[in-house]
């Protein structure tokens, strides 16, 4: 049960990291907290677009938003990053998703209808 939840959380984190804008936002936050406006500066993107990226990072547990009503600065959450930052963890994730695909592919190959034509 817990393992499944962990895996889901892990997937969300990797999905959040699979985007260059979001990685750049994180790299900026690694130097210190920043507001959405500050984070948006280097990008040719609207504020709502940047906010969307930040929400994805927030949901993935990579970023925390402050409570100061107006500015709500963003802060990086190192714990989550640590969990996924080792080479081994990243490869584990890639292999697991490959084997999910292998499972699906094997099921297709072995289904009574067969998919030999696809080879």
């Amino acid at each position, binding site marked *: 049960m817990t393992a499944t939840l962990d895996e889901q959380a892990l997937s969300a984190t*990797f999905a959040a*990291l*699979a*985007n*260059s*804008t979001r*990685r*750049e936002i*994180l*790299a900026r936050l*690694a*130097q210190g907290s920043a507001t959405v406006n500050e984070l948006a500066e280097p990008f040719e993107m609207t504020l709502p677009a940047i906010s969307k990226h930040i929400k994805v990072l927030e949901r993935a547990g990579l970023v925390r938003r402050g409570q100061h009503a107006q500015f709500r600065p963003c802060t*990086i959450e*190192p714990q989550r*990053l*640590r969990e*996924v*930052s*080792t*080479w*081994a*963890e*990243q*490869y*584990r994730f*890639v*292999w*697991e*998703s*490959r*084997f999910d*695909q*292998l*499972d*699906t*592919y*094997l*099921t297709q*190959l*072995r289904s009574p209808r067969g998919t030999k034509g*696809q*080879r």
Partner: protein
Amino acid sequence: MTTKGDPRDCVMIERNFAAPIGLLWEMWTDPEHFKAWYGPQGASIPVARFDLRVGGERFVGMEMTTPNGAMRMWFTGEHVEVTEPRRLAYTEAMSDENGNVRSGASMGMPEGHPTNTEVRVELDESDGRTHMRLTHEGIPRDSPGAMGWNMAFDKLAEYVKQQS
């Protein structure tokens, strides 16, 4: 550089598949089958060539769609063990499109990304199901991860290191 036995340096995954061992062997060694499953999400495998002998070369091309367009990555290696249908082991390194090994750093990876790793596949059949154990090792301790999505990551990795 590598410390065997430290789980952080090595990935080990065990899975069961509802298929006979011969078919699992083909999944790994027949390029057409291999291409069908090996690409991680959002990636395809346009090229897969295996010379299935100890010392024989292998070459895999991966294509990923990124917001900045298609990105290709190449991997080369050598077979270390080929024991049909039970054991397959090979080395794996990033390379250019001609199969010349490139260091991770020269491919834009953060410092510490392993240049060469070893993948081992062990298969075992019982009652028509196949148990697979995958081991991927050769990972420098505490090296920052780098799997394509991670290229702009060096500063971050440094930060994480400071925090641990």
